[in-house]
């Protein structure tokens, strides 16, 4: 009787040990967080906000480095060639990683990117300078309808979230605005402030950063952003537009399931931290919590949605 119990316990312990050892991936040493853009953009800012929380919670340095090129394509094309031991991660952006491979052979495919967490999104917003004659969204739409093509709107990149938003909105209103692509949100903000263009397709983060120098006409969210209670949503004004640029993190696809799960938990833990959430919200970001488990369904939805939008917009065939 005793012997059987002993045997059972030993067996159970042995099993537990093996499983425990198997499922436990670890960090050893500083982590390389690659941003596939230049410094200063939303991807960079959100990474910088994560940095101190990471160091505090997990005791390791998170080293942010930049690999700009091709609107992110260069970084993503190189991701799966990097070491999959869990020490290297890279930021990913939607819709970029969906639309770019659909347009051309850019060196990676959407499915090949092992994205394990989507931790925020920046809702689309139409931004105008504070001294702009447009007080409401209706003003802008009416001007665009009366003068087709004359309302110039800056935005970051082509076939990006900003560009897609502009095309989608034009279809909804029936007006014709002109999209002027800039390299990054920063450059498109500069153009807006300098009155080189009449308005900007930007994000809520622009409104947060620029404060009183700009006015947001509408945001593409379900409910108003807590930081901007006076800015209506597109939905309120009658346009069904909810979305923006989603950002998350990926590992090389050679990383093991344990490593992926470990990272998903770590980023999830940072994302759950109320202090982190507050900092992000103060910056104008909107939070999202899509972990590795939810990722496949989320991505499937987004892929379907973006490819449909892009096809309608004429960006892909």
């Amino acid at each position, binding site marked *: 009787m005793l012997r059987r119990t002993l045997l059972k316990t030993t067996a159970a312990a042995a099993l537990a040990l093996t499983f425990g050892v198997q499922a436990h991936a670890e960090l050893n040493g500083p982590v390389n967080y690659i941003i596939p853009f230049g*410094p*200063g953009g939303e991807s960079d800012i959100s990474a910088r906000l994560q940095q*101190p929380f990471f160091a505090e919670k997990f005791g390791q340095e998170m080293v*942010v480095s930049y690999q700009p090129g*091709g609107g992110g394509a260069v970084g993503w094309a190189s991701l799966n060639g990097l070491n999959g031991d869990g020490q290297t991660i890279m930021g990913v952006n939607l819709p970029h990683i969906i639309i770019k491979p659909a347009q051309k052979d850019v060196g990676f495919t959407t499915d090949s990117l092992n994205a394990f967490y989507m931790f925020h999104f920046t809702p689309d917003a139409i931004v105008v300078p504070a001294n702009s004659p447009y007080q409401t969204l209706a003003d802008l739409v009416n001007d665009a309808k009366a003068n087709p093509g004359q309302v110039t709107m800056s935005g970051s990149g082509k076939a990006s979230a900003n560009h897609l938003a502009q095309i989608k909105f034009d279809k909804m209103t029936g007006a014709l605005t002109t999209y002027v692509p800039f390299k990054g949100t920063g450059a498109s903000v*500069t153009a807006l402030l*300098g009155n080189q263009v009449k308005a900007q397709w930007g994000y809520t983060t622009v409104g947060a950063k620029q404060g009183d120098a700009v006015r947001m006409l509408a945001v593409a969210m379900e409910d108003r952003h807590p930081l901007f209670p006076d800015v209506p949503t597109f939905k309120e004004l009658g346009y069904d537009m909810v979305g923006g640029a989603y950002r998350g993190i990926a590992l090389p696809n050679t990383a093991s399931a344990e490593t992926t799960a470990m990272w998903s938990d770590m980023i999830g833990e940072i994302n759950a931290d109320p202090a982190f959430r507050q900092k992000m919200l103060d910056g104008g970001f909107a939070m999202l919590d899509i972990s590795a488990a939810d990722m496949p369904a989320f991505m499937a939805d987004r892929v379907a949605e973006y490819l449909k939008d892009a096809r309608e917009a004429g960006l892909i065939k």
Partner: protein
Amino acid sequence: MEFSHFLSALTPLNFALALFGVVAGTVIGSIPGLTATMALAILVPITFSMEPASALILLGAIYTGAIYGGAYAAILLNTPGTPSAIATTFDGYPMAKRGDGDLAVALACFASVFGGLVGAIALLFLAPPLSQVALAFGPIEYFWLSVFGLSLIASLSSGNLMKGLVGGAFGMILSTVGVAEISADIRLTFGSQTLIGGFGVVGALIGLYCVPVLIDLVAVPDRHLKVEEGVKTVRIGEAFALATRSKFNLIRSSIIGTLVGILPGAGGSVAGLVAYSEAKRTAKPDQKFGEGEPNGIMATESANSATVGGGFIPTLVLGIPGTPPDAIVLGALLVQGVRTGPAMFSQSGSIVFTFIYGLIIATVLMLPAGLLIGRYAYKSIVTVPKAVLVPTVGFMTIIGTFAIRNSVSDVIIMLCLGVFGWVVARFGFAASPIVLGLILGPIAEQGFVQGWTIGAATNNLFGMFFGRPISQGILLFTLITLILPLIVQWRKSRRFEEANQ
């Protein structure tokens, strides 16, 4: 702007940070392949535990040191340590080759300190009004600015305008290789995955400048740089005298540097180029630019150091980074909870002003630190036997290029460019126009496409390109730069003919 801010900048911690930052920055800047951006990106986490003002001072000091440090490699190895030192090679290396390397290094230090101070003072007193300059420059202005830059390249290719233009155009084409920024197309990769990343400026810099130097060094048994026997003391006194004699050059170049620094995306390389070209245009007959003229170094080094202060103007006033290092500084500030953007000066004024004073202190500290490091750098490059120097520099170029994007293919590309650059340089096609074309290409392209889009949409194409006052000014300058030397030449030959009759 009270005195209390100045005092808080002078605390032992901030002072130590400024000194450390300047020294570390100088060392990093002097290694080709390591840029200020890289250094700042690594060091940002350290600043999280600091006061915002102290963090800013450390980052600003590193930035200042790095822009100065680029001059060492430019003067002693004909390789700009950072892109901002490209124009320093024009006169720096010739000076080093004829034995005046220590003088050149000392001059670079004085000029950098002067330029840095001018930029910082502009930041202190004139930031809000000057920030409007950043906004006034639209896509078209950037386009004409890069055309101006190209014309400078051509006019600086002494004697061979055509070949300079060829190099510049070729560099611009190289800049288009890879995924296009403004559209989704992939250009000139011929299906290769390695070329999708395009030709990075820093890698091309190292390849086109440094590798040819190495190839030639191994080929002949002569010493690398001539060393004047019997000159014991570092020629600081001589350098200082020269600097004070060229006050006007220094002031003008620093102002140019500050203004160019204010323009987001322009950077130290453009500033150095414009300042150099202006100095050359207004040169006295006995000044031989391009053959080791001290005024050349003073112009470029003061201009590129002034971009540090100038770049902080739009960064701190508008929240728009003037250069990539500024963007990193903004990120560091954001983490600290500082509201960047237009409200910064009013809401966080004490941080801002303490920082600016700290920047001034760091720049002043660069004088003794820089002279000391410079002397050491000069001595080591000159005394190290060539047999060790060449492999060391070769190794450094490879590790430096690798570090840019952690990519071995970058190294191979760099070496290929290097051999190519050496070959064509032998037949009159210099490296500088190609590199400058590489830098200016994206600016020109984006400015052109954006300007065209806006102009076409508003049915104002002609007015867009030719009707804006700043653009007209730049265009005028371009024409003057291209035509004036021809007129001068024509008049000279006329006078020559008349004298002979």
